[in-house]
């Protein structure tokens, strides 16, 4: 435990450089196509947001530490240093100007995973003390309180009471041996309580046992967003421990982007061992239920609507078809925006950007990309499956005086659910 320092930052980055990263830097030919895929560049026109430029400090460290030629250059004083000024200059590029959306990684002709590198370089920035205030605060709250927004169990319990009144359904807490462990994101608890209600009704209809964990109801992982693996590990371990303790078969990640990345892909690598349970996104589970006939829907929404693909769920998570399968059942006028699917544009608020007040203006500028996509379609409703996207989109729409209500897919599906008429006491 020691104060952050440039030295610590550099050491952290050194430790993050692996063979893939080295191959990426060796292969980059400065073609600049990554910029054409990044909404922070396309909407600001500022070339400093070119994705490969965001990781330039890491490249310098790689070159001088891990290549003979680079060492020789450094000895002759021919290469640029990484110092406090570097960290200061690049902080907004690495945090404010990047949502880790991964679009750049998909378009790079030589196959570089640039967003992966940006995730890695954040380790160094955080260790050097150059993480944004907002993210430090969110991480602190997540670690100390249990949720980055400071939501505590009583708040959840209050929600559950509402739910019980509305639906007559129970929300099991810490039920050992349940098949599914349901996680929630602070955003959902605070802003979109309809989600939990939808879950309850769907699970009941499907006849599946489920529970939430009192010690680990939070899915959001601030550690991933600020880029500190130690904190990410701490947070994800709460979920893993609870899942192990309760002996569940499947952990369901809620409508939240980075929560899915954290629990589905990063978790096992953070704790250093494979899980004893499966992890699925709620959309995967719903799609399964529908395909197996466990839940049925009736009726259709006839408003013209479209679907926004949350980056971590579609592009980075591989859950692209499922929301479309589900939407096609309950929407008669579902139109796709241009670049829909794996290449969809980020909302601009993921990867910690929405928790970083300093980035507000930039985020709103970035929203112009989504604005253009929506204006080209002329829809009445926007559906998505990430609470953070939802909030960011709502802010953007309001700023631009666009009157398009946003609804979560799970919540929407529940509206058209065919339920048996028995009420549970």
């Amino acid at each position, binding site marked *: *435990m*020691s*104060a*952050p320092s440039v030295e*610590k930052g550099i*050491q*952290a980055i*050194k*430790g993050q*450089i*692996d063979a893939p990263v080295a191959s990426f830097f060796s292969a980059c030919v400065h073609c600049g196509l990554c910029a054409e895929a990044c909404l922070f560049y396309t909407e600001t026109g500022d070339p400093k947001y070119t994705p490969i430029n965001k990781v330039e400090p890491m490249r310098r460290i790689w070159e001088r*530490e*891990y*290549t*003979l030629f680079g060492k020789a250059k450094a000895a002759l004083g021919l290469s640029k240093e990484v110092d406090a000024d570097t960290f200061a200059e690049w902080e907004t590029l690495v945090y404010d100007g990047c949502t880790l959306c991964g679009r750049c990684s998909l378009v790079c002709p030589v196959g570089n995973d640039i967003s992966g590198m940006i995730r890695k370089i954040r380790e160094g920035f*955080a*260790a050097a*003390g*150059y*993480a944004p205030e907002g993210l*430090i605060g969110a*991480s*602190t709250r997540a*670690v*100390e309180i249990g949720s980055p927004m400071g939501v505590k169990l009583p708040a959840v319990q209050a929600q559950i009471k509402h739910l019980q009144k509305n639906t007559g359904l129970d929300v099991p807490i810490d039920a050992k041996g349940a098949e599914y462990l349901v996680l929630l994101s602070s955003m959902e608890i605070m802003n979109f309580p309809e989600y939990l209600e939808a879950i309850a009704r769907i699970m009941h209809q499907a006849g599946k046992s489920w529970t939430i964990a009192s010690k680990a109801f939070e899915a959001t992982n601030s550690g991933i967003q*600020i880029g*500190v693996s*130690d*904190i990410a590990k701490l947070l994800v371990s709460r979920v893993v421990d609870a899942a192990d303790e309760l002996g569940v078969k499947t952990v369901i990640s809620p409508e939240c982007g980075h929560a899915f990345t954290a629990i589905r892909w990063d978790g096992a690598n953070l704790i250093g061992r494979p899980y004893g349970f499966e992890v699925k996104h709620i959309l995967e589970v719903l799609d399964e239920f529908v395909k197996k006939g466990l839940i049925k829907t009736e009726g259709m929404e006839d408003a013209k609507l479209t679907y926004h693909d949350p980056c971590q769920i579609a592009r980075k998570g591989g859950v692209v078809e499922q929301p479309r399968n589900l939407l096609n059942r309950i929407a008669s006028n579902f139109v796709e925006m241009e670049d829909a699917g794996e290449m969809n544009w980020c909302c601009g608020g993921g990867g910690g950007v929405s928790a970083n007040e300093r980035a507000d203006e930039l985020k709103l500028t970035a929203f112009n990309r989504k604005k253009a996509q929506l204006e080209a379609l002329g829809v009445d409703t926007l559906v998505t499956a990430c609470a953070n996207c939802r909030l960011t989109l709502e802010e953007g729409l309001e700023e631009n005086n666009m009157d398009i209500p946003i609804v979560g897919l799970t919540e929407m599906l529940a509206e058209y659910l065919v339920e048996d008429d028995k009420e549970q006491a």
Partner: protein
Amino acid sequence: MDDLTLSERLRQRGVSRRGFMKFCAATASMMALPPIMIPKVAAALEQARRPSVIWLSFQECTGCTESLTRSHAPTIEGLIFDHISLDYHHTLQAAAGDAAEHARDEAMKKNWGEYLLVVDGSIPLGENGNFSTIAGISNLEMLKEVAEGAAAIISVGTCAAFGGLPMANPNPTGAVSVSDIIKDKPIVNVPGCPPIPTVITGVLAHFLTFGRLPELDHLNRPKVFFGQNIHDRCYRRPFYERGQFAETFDDEGARKGWCLFKLGCKGPTTYNACATAKWNEGTSFPIEAGHGCIGCSEPNFWDAGGFYRALSLPHTNVGETILTAGAAGIAIGAAAAVLNRKRKSDAVDNRETITIKDLSKES
């Protein structure tokens, strides 16, 4: 030794005036002189008295002399050759021993400053020049001595012009060219292994006509004969352009007369008149006979990497170089890899765990 002019001599041998003019026209055109010069060439040759020529043969194979003098039927070139007063030539002279050397001395004294010195063969410098001697005098000494009184020197054949075969790696006799030794006389290099006969007589005719040597290139070769490379005048050039190459000496391409680049033809980098003047009175030249040009009129053609190795190939064994370099690369790479691993594991091992308290600069 009579004192007939060339035209009188030719008349004596039964060459008509018409035949003589035809020869002058051919000579003029071969030297790229305009037609208006033909009468001038004729007039000069007609009146040409017999210049004294001393021919020194050093480290040579006599191939140059053979090329120049062997003919199945007398040619006008041969007659020209007869016209010069060849006062000293090992192969052709009748005298031998002291008598021959005495003849040389006499010719030198009588024509001091005016005689032509023709040299074939390289000059060995090793063992104090004793690898090759004539009458007890080393080639080196004899060359210096005779060159002093010469009006001009013609180095016939690649050996005299550039060192030739004796100079090939490892050059055991320390062979050098005439130009390496004589620096203060006009020298014409007429290379080739051997040179084309008409090239020699063309140079001589030029000298007889104008009293000076023809225009020379950067290697002192007459531009008129050595100014174009074989590739540019080769009749097989269309096949090169079409990418049709013979792969072996008896494959379909070879039989069809395709380009011989892949079989080592050095045509593109060889400057000579073979493709146009050809050999044996215009009969053929190596490429036409199915063998690639070996570049015999160029310096160091023996050490240019092999007659059958294409120009686009390096002299060395590429496969071997790659394997050796590969081994070196793996060795250096392994060392660098070990270094990298250590640095990385140091960085990973020495990393302190970060808690929320370690994030703010101010704390």
